[in-house]
């Protein structure tokens, strides 16, 4: 039943999203709400979220193929598949953000290696190739040394690309809210946290055929990982915000107040903290509830929504402080605002990305199961 509902939701979100994709591709970026002062918006946040999700999914696949954690046995293919879906989904999201996406080939053929963006594009390409090879070997030769070797390389690359996203923002000295030395450390934690959230959903909702005891133990282990990573995330947020408020640097104060008391207060308190952190942590701390497939899946969904909101609250507040005081009022025109709420077109494109991800993951899982049956 949940699977059917999920297919329907996937199809509906994709259908709604196709409108936005059409508008973006054929009418340009005028109907987006990001501009020249709030430069990066929802699509960049979703790229951070989905690319992190892919890295996290890969790390959790390594729990099966690399670290042989018994609770994870047999889940590796599913997580590799999830990584294979979410990484291109994230790249599609950032691709839509490019003014000239048809020139993306230039990053490969005419790259500037002093640009961290170039390194990330190349890193993600390598990561994508490693995911494909890992998945191939998972079917063909899961026990062979080649699989271990590839998974080790992939595991390290997953950490690096996740951390690299943190550097992409953290390395920017112009934006004090992003210029946090611990960003490259935080992002791999975010990645594994979101991977655990996704796995709670997949195992809790779509893998009822697993051995009952193993599934129960796996859900409990994922619950513990989720609680631990949520606590770590909360610690990072509290540390960042208190340090910014105590330091009193204007740009940081503007950004933190924007999150805590400003237009994004509900997204922070309501979505990221209550829905995405407190409720899942409280529920998942109950072993009985955590081992219930439906509840675990629902909490996984809440965690993912919270993580996605968290990415938006990293990307946007870093841009709300004017680079030069009075800049927004100095010259008026379209896209010269210092405020940002994603437009319907932007939500629609994100809906397409999410709808694609839901459908692709489900279809892939069904086919993976079928492969298993064929093998039997």
């Amino acid at each position, binding site marked *: 039943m949940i699977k059917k509902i999920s297919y329907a939701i996937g199809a509906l979100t994709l259908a709604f999203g196709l409108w936005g994709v059409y508008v973006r591709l054929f009418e340009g970026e005028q109907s987006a709400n990001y501009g020249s002062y709030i430069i990066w918006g929802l699509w960049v946040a979703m790229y951070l979220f989905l690319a992190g999700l892919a890295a996290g999914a890969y790390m959790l696949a390594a729990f099966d193929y690399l670290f042989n954690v018994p609770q994870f046995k047999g889940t590796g293919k599913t997580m590799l598949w999830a990584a294979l879906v979410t990484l291109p989904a994230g790249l599609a999201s950032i691709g839509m953000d490019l003014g000239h996406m048809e*020139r993306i080939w230039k990053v490969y053929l005419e790259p500037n290696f002093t640009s961290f963006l170039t390194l990330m594009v190349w890193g993600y390409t390598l990561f994508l190739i490693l995911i494909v090879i890992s998945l191939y070997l998972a079917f063909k030769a899961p026990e062979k040394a080649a699989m271990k070797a590839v998974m080790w390389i992939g595991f390290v690359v997953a950490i690096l690309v996740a951390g690299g996203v943190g550097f992409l923002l953290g390395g920017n*000295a112009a934006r004090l809210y992003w210029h946090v030395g611990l960003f490259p450390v935080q992002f791999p934690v975010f990645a594994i946290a979101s991977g655990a959230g996704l796995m709670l959903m997949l195992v809790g909702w779509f893998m009822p055929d697993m051995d009952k005891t193993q599934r129960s133990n796996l859900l409990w282990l994922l619950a513990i990982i989720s609680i631990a990573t949520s606590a770590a995330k909360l610690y990072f947020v509290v540390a960042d915000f208190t340090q910014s408020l105590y330091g009193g640097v204007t740009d940081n104060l503007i950004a933190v107040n924007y999150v805590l008391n400003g237009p994004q207060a509900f997204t922070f308190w309501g979505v990221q903290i209550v829905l995405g952190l407190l409720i899942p942590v409280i529920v998942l701390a109950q072993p009985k509830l955590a081992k219930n497939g439906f509840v675990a899946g629902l909490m996984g969904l809440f965690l993912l929504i919270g993580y996605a909101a968290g990415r938006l609250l990293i990307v946007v507040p870093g841009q709300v402080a004017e680079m030069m005081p009075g800049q927004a009022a100095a010259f008026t025109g379209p*896209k*010269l605002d210092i405020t940002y709420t994603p437009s319907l077109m932007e939500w629609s494109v994100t809906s397409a990305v999410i709808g694609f991800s839901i459908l692709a993951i489900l279809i892939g899982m069904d086919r993976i199961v079928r492969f298993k049956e064929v093998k039997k």
Partner: protein
Amino acid sequence: MTEANLLQKYASEVFAGLVAPVAEGLQVSAAPAADPLVKEDVLVRMERELKHALEKPASERRWVMVIDLRRCVGCHACTVACVAENKLPPGVVYRPVMTEEVGTYPNVTMKFLPRPCMQCENAPCTPVCPVTATYHNEEGIVVVDYEQCIGCRACMAACPYGARTFDFGYHYTEGLPVFDGAVIGGKTAAEYEHISQEYGQAWERQGRHESPIGNVRKCHFCLHRIKDGVLPACTTTCIGRATYFGDANDPDSLVTELINKPNVIRLKEELGTEPRVYYIV
């Protein structure tokens, strides 16, 4: 000397003394004429120095801009001149003037800060470009290759001065009534507006995807004018003679003279960007 001759000779000087009391020394020291009472306008001097600088190899020039904040009256003429010169579309601005109200009534004053691209020698915007679409040209000016730019806006995020804007494809002439066959009306205006001459090249901003639409745009010190020995539009248009431009590698140039004074600052110098725009405060 007749009375008429006397008036003709000194009246303009008296007027110049009234409107530009803080520029003492600048014009006089620049005067090449034999008669010490005939002053050379700073624009004339800068244009002469510009032509002299163009005789040198490009790599030996160091273009800088100096803005005298004491003389800026916040008229925004430079902003408008820049928009007109480069045919900037709605939402694209190279040289806004920030306005700040200081104090409380009755002790209130206004402060103005024109902000072109700082043309940083250690520019944070250039190394982040994934395809080297923005770089220092041989004269040290940070330029954008519209045919190369992928529109990722990483340079905009990296610029600590907010000196870059994105071309979303708007036109001022959109929606204007069209009078076929007439020299006025939307079609004629659009034909004029849609072709930009930046970087010495005609850029047809058609549709929603043709460069420079979908690209990042920025001030380039009017390179196309400099090439022909003409000062940047913002400099020639400044009604208060508050903007100076020239070659800082020329020890005798006006800009060198100005930037060597102690009351000169650069914005956000602590970031190590080494801007080529100086402010006299």
